[in-house]
């Protein structure tokens, strides 16, 4: 590929959704009865040439260029338009306005294992999935042995994958995706699934692909992964580009702007997500305190308490979790109600407050970010707030000032310890 031609050129891309205009369950009768009214409304709207109150602009005038061979991370809150942008660039949905031009073969990976069928054997699924991702039969055949070796499920290839464990399916699916060799690779949050080992393997492979000169556009909530893979990042906020530049700067800006900086013992309001359809339940506010010293930052290795307010439109059981991550997005502590109590959160209609009590927080003093997650009992996300709350842990050492940042020499994890002399020997 010649490097003077951008691999991805996006100009003025906008995408409008009509709220309530096309839910999946819309029936013919509704269309017939509301058809006339909506036609008139649409005509009026065109005459005004503008937005109607029912419009939702998921993307608003997005323009950027990516030179061939560059890896770019796309970050932003849920509902900021990341996924919509990826879907437009991978041609799954059409833009409302604007255009884009892509040089080279496009490989889009918005999900691992798309089109896998439980009744088909592992082998059949490799070929079907490969063809769906745009590989030719000859290409799949040529890479088949590598794919199989990468997946580690050699012995089960003639067995229908419904007999596989979910981990095996995931490994096989990723093995196919990893052997896609496009000029332009578009990857959505596929790393969110799978265990640490799997994620490490995925990242390693993406690194390799990028180093081979492939242009990569990568969406992730995992800021550490974005920083590792991409020198450049684009921050989307409410459908617009908020920042575009070196990854470290963009990530800083993202963290500074999006994470509500919480003060101890004060409720911090969490803005409603920018989505067209109202959610069944949302996080409305959160706070954190040191349960022993109100109005103070919790101390490193001391107790800490988090509280979240959830507003639900109807009473329902849900899965509730919070995690604490460092500034790079590395998850350090995971507080999952199901894993801790073995039960679901029974959300009443209206607002409820949930308390997370941590006995000892073995983290060094410093800045951390709390991510909140609410899902149905089957695990599909209702509200997800990556790095929603920024918190501070104070030093437990009275000699050190609060907010004094510890340095690298302190090690990753603090620990209560003592060092004493327990023996001695006289020199001979």
């Amino acid at each position, binding site marked *: *590929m010649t490097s003077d031609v951008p691999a991805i050129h996006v100009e003025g891309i906008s995408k409008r959704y009509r709220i309530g205009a096309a839910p999946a369950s*819309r*029936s013919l009768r509704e269309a017939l009865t509301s058809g006339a009214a909506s036609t008139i409304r649409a005509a009026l709207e065109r005459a005004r040439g503008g937005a109607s109150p029912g419009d939702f602009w998921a993307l608003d005038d997005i323009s950027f260029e990516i030179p061939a061979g560059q890896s770019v991370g796309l970050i932003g809150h849920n509902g900021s338009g990341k996924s919509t942008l990826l879907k437009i660039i*991978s041609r799954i*949905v059409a833009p409302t306005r604007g255009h*884009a031009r*892509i040089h080279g073969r496009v490989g889009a990976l918005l999900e691992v294992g*798309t089109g896998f*069928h439980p009744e088909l054997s592992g082998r059949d699924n490799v070929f079907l999935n490969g063809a769906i991702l745009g590989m030719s039969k000859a290409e799949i055949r040529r890479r088949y042995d590598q794919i199989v070796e990468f997946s580690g499920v050699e012995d089960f290839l003639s067995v229908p994958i419904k007999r596989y464990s979910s981990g095996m399916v995931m490994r096989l699916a990723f093995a196919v995706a990893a052997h896609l060799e496009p000029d332009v690779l578009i990857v959505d949050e596929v790393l969110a699934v799978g265990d640490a080992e799997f994620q490490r393997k995925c990242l390693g492979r993406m690194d390799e692909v990028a180093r081979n000169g492939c242009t990569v556009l990568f969406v992730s909530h995992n800021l550490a992964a974005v920083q590792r893979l991409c020198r450049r990042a684009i921050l989307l906020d409410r459908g617009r580009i908020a920042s575009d530049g070196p990854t470290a700067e963009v990530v800083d800006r993202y963290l500074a702007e999006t994470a509500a900086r919480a003060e101890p013992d004060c409720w911090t309001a969490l803005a409603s997500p920018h989505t067209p359809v109202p959610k069944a339940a949302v996080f409305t506010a959160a706070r954190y305190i040191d349960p022993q010293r109100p109005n103070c930052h919790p101390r490193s290795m001391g107790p800490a308490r988090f509280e979240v307010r959830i507003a639900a439109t109807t009473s329902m059981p849900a899965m509730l979790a919070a995690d604490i991550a460092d500034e790079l997005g590395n998850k350090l502590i995971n507080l999952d109600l199901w894993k801790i109590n073995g039960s679901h959160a029974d959300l009443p209609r209206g607002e409820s407050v949930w308390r997370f009590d941590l006995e000892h927080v073995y983290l060094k003093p410093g800045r951390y970010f709390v991510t909140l997650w609410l899902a149905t009992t089957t695990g599909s996300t209702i509200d997800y707030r990556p790095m929603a709350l920024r918190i501070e842990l104070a030093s437990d050492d009275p000699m050190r000032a609060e907010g004094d940042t510890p340095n690298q020499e302190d090690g990753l994890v603090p620990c209560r310890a003592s060092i004493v002399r327990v023996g001695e020997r006289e020199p001979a």
Partner: protein
Amino acid sequence: MEGGLIKGAAGDPEITVIRPGAVSLGSRLAELLSYRELLYFLVLRNLKVRYAQAVLGAAWSILQPVLTALLMGLLLGRFAKFSTDGVPPFLFYFAAMVPWTFFANAVTSATGSLVANQQLIRKVYFPRLSLPLAAVLSAMADLVVPMLLLLGTMVVDGVPMSPGLLVALPVLLLISAVAATAIGIGFSAMNLRYRDVQVALPFLVQLGFFASPIIYPASRVPEAYRALYFLNPMAAVIDGFRAATLRTHALSWSDIAVSGTTALALLAVAMVYFARSEPDFADLA
């Protein structure tokens, strides 16, 4: 040009242009051709999945028309004494059920094809037309054994294999395939928006069953209505199947021409409707 995708010249690098609105039909078809291997794998998937864990497997493709024709032969031919143009009732009904079973199955599975593959539509780009097409092609694979059986009964019966017959059957099959593709393409796109289509479909197929010369010979249709009657593509296909395989009457090439034209016109309308709806598919799925 208003298309959403224009591939570059044959050499590399390929250039993809993304724009609002529907894509021109020509570039759609060219693209479909470049995705023919995907079509092959989709057909293979449909066939394998359909017969996975089925003891009788592909034998079902023959049981459906044979059992229906046997029952019709007994109830309609022997008991109710319907006219079968002087042909043994089983053969009379079987000759009609072979193309009809294909048509009904093809239309039904093609209509549901986009809704059944919503997950794919939401997550990957590929020519959406390949889904209803794969459904029709899979139904066609199920036509092979019944066709062989039909030809076999003709040999046993001593029907002479004339050149006209050898030309007529492929032409008739092609018309039924075009008609099934047209209806399947149009309905699949409509079904993604209005799920009413899949609810109404069994009823519509049943109407088609009575509107086609299956349980009665086409010769019973009054002369005044024949022109209208043969607008139904399956009318000429089924009548032609009987004429060719059972020698009940001479093949009417003019009726076949009318049906063929209707089928092609339907296909054109369906393709345009499909192409217009396509940009919204991922949002509707």
